[in-house]
């Protein structure tokens, strides 16, 4: 019998419900796994084992009282950019290295109400700016499949922990691919829900119009359970959409025969990695076998996606990150000469190179005289990309494409070449630009044994269709069942 930490949330839920295990036992198993592997992986910025055991004890009390939900007692890792009252939320940054959140993010409240067990805060690129988790002030997270490789980012800790058995499920956030890319690189299942599906209240903002919280899990079933928990309207978030979400688990067993998947030419013409190409071809065959048909289509403005993203996201970031000034909380320079100098030194010391680069980009793009040429033009491109997807979905139910152009790369390989790093996001960014739901599911491995994910994109609020497709795919394949040897 496999260890408890290797099981999915659904499996553990069944064991908990039937009183074959306790949450404390599950949590101890996961904590032991963390003990064994964390020194090599570095998935977490902050670990709170005592708190986790307290929460597990409380969960067991709930279960004993018959008050069990589908995720009660399940250990979860939370990305370091979400606020949990009394916990540090550093966002992978020195500037918030001592910041203790004074309130709960809406997702954290929901996790608490469900009786889940919070293990700690998962490592991430500083302020979610990065594609590899290398920009974290706390040092990089390593890919559980190959310790020399990056796990993808920015939610690298969230994906690595789930892949390695250091957490059963996790929460990440995705602004330009930050859930899907690490999910792909770590061979786990992750979804960025439709913009507005999950409350952003308590998610420390990087680019507010693109940020979205989503779950990472080992399969579609666990993902559906997590979506059931976190999707829903929140009056504390004005951009949260007041719609009724379905019970996502009801889509797990629905057949997908008759569905049409779109294959955007622009995505595939960019593909020159043989491993990724093979995985995509294999995936097509699996879907074909399930009765899915394919249609080639065009998303003509896709090529402008990265350029536009690197105007909009840094612009919003330059404003969102202005509050880290040393006045109220977080890092403050020790010596300074007057107020302006305090601001300058605090921010110079507190932010890393990538964050500074994006703050400067955004500040420039919003400057008087440049606004129309940059921000406004980027906003127009964003509208065009959204329109492209809209017309694409007239001919297909979802889009199938790669998550990233390559399998995971080496730590240090691209960190000094921001443009190469940015290009990693070419397939994920357009999804954020259009606010669509996008999922990454394990699609196979490169010839050297590195994970390659595939991406499914659906129309707004059609997360359920992604769950349906992923579940059907996983019923036919075993990529998602493979675990890294650590």
């Amino acid at each position: 019998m496999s260890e408890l930490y290797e099981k999915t949330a659904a499996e553990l839920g069944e064991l908990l419900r039937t009183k074959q295990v306790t949450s404390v036992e599950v949590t101890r198993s996961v904590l032991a796994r963390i003990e064994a592997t964390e020194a090599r992986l570095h998935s977490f910025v902050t670990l709170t084992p005592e708190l986790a055991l307290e929460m597990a004890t409380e969960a067991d009390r709930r279960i004993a009282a018959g008050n069990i939900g589908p995720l009660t007692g399940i250990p979860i890792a939370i990305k370091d950019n979400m606020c949990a009252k009394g916990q540090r939320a550093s966002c992978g940054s020195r500037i918030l290295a001592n910041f203790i959140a004074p309130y709960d993010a809406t997702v954290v409240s929901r996790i608490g109400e469900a009786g889940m067990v919070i293990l700690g805060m998962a490592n991430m690129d500083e302020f979610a700016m990065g594609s590899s988790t290398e920009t974290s002030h706390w040092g990089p997270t390593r890919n559980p499949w190959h310790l020399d490789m990056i796990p993808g980012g920015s939610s690298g800790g969230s994906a690595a922990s789930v892949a390695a058995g250091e957490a059963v499920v996790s929460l990440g956030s995705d602004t330009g691919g930050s859930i899907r890319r690490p999910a792909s690189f770590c061979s786990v299942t992750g979804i960025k829900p439709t913009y507005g599906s999950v409350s952003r209240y308590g998610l420390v903002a990087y680019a507010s119009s693109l940020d979205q919280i989503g779950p990472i899990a080992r399969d579609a079933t666990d993902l559906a359970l997590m979506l059931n928990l976190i999707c829903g309207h929140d009056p504390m978030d004005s951009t949260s959409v007041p719609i009724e979400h379905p019970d996502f688990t009801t889509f797990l067993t629905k057949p997908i025969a008759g569905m049409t998947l779109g294959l955007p030419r622009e995505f595939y013409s960019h593909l020159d990695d043989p491993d990724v190409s093979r995985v995509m071809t294999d995936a097509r065959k699996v879907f074909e076998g399930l009765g899915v048909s394919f249609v080639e289509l065009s998303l003509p403005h896709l090529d402008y996606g990265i350029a536009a993203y690197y105007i909009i996201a840094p612009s919003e970031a330059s404003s969102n990150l202005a509050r880290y000034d040393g006045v109220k909380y977080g890092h403050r320079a020790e010596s300074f000469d007057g107020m302006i100098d305090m601001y300058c030194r605090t921010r110079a010391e507190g932010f890393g190179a990538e964050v500074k680069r994006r703050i400067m980009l955004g500040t420039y793009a919003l400057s008087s005289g440049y606004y129309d040429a940059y921000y406004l033009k980027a906003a127009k491109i964003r509208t065009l990309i959204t329109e492209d997807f809209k017309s694409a979905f007239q001919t297909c139910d979802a889009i199938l494409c790669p998550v990233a152009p390559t399998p995971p790369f080496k730590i240090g390989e691209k960190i000094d070449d921001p443009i190469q790093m940015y290009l990693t996001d070419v397939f994920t960014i357009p999804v954020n630009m259009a606010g669509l739901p996008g999922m990454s599911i394990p699609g196979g491995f490169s010839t050297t044994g590195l994970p390659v994910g595939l991406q499914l994109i659906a129309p707004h609020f059609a997360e359920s269709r992604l769950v349906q497709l992923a579940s059907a795919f996983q019923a036919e394949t075993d990529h998602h069942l493979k675990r890294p040897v650590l």
Partner: protein
Amino acid sequence: MEYEAVIGLEVHAQLLTDSKAFCSCTTRFGAEPNSNTCPICQGMPGTLPVLNRKALEYTVRMALACNCTINEISRFARKNYYYPDLPKNYQISQYELPVSEHGWVEIETAEGVRRIGLTRIHMEEDAGKLIHDEDRPVSYVDLNRTGVPLIEIVSEPEIRTPEEAAEYLRSLRAILVYLDVCDGNMQEGSFRCDANVSLRPVGQKTLGVKTEVKNMNSFRNVQRALQYEIDRQTEALRNGERIVQDTRLFDPATGMTASMRSKEQAHDYRYFPDPDLLPLRVDPELVERLGRDLPELPAEKKRRFVEQFGIPPYDAAVLTASRELAAYFERTLELFPKPKTVSNWIMTELMRQLKGEESGLASCAVQPDQLAALLKLIDEGTISGKIAKTVFEEMCATGGDPSEIINQKGLVQISDSEELSALVRKVLEDNRGEVEKYLAGKDKIFGFFVGQVMKATKGKANPQLVNDLLVQELKARSKP
């Protein structure tokens, strides 16, 4: 060369909502520093703004009262600048698409009523306050005011004189106070004003270089600052100098303005639409309802007072300065329907008691029914107007009923002609010399006789009767 001033005003008015613009903290004034705050208005990481719908309603009411167009869709924008009283280091405001535009208010000028155009009225949030330590180089931040809803009212550059500017501010303030959307308190900063001033040769259409003047915390200081700035610019232009575009601070102590920052040093606010707030849609039905529910506004009320009650425009302007005062006037009139008398009493005696603070009206001991009762007593001849003033003061001090005060103090007017005739005769006997002079043609001495009678009766004599009797008695003494 003759120059004319072109003045545009930007007014910030704090809205009287119970809670802040984007969180549920109370807006109550005077609490312990930082006690009326929460993670949202403290600018904690991860927090998000949610618009207070009441603040929107107040804004729309003001916009409608100022004849503005309400934009069905408007946007909040971020105004980015660093200052410790602004915890997010950006202010949520409106920029490209304000909630309302293209309005006007009426002002009284020497040439009659004039309309001043409004460019826009938009919503924004207030900043906190810095408190500087007097002994050490340390400043403290109080965020209680952070996030309190404000509206910014921007006028067209159509104001020509400091007096017009003050008149414009009075008009705006009166409307705000009428609507109960702002308390209009300039000293406490709930009604603030910045001015843009430029000069141009009379007849020229294009605008000259402008300066922005800040820190004027009373109507009088607005006038002083503008006059100073106009004089300064006039002199500079006459000397052939060029006006430098800058932001200037008014110093109430010296009455002068001094440059605070030049155009080059001006902030680049890097406005962009706030991604945390969706485009704001104002339901046309809401606009219609709020429009229907608007109270009678100061200008309308003033016109009606002149037409309906026949009082002079000046009286009407004073009486309609606040809704409470106007209501007081109308209520008194219902009980004592002589408009000019009531107006005079309110404008002189009542206002003196209130020391110009209309806010004291509610707690004033003399309410309309008592004032009307007092005026009736004068009208009926029970007391003289002069005695009535003493009675009024007593009423204000004790809250007593006028008849009771008159009885208690024995102030009832002497209208008994026999009693008064005797007194008149005695006065004339005692002052023969003066009578001689009067009869010789020195008419002015008549007032002296009246005064003597009044003195003898401690002011209680019916003045009309005293007059009549004196005329009669003096006539009898004149040589045939």
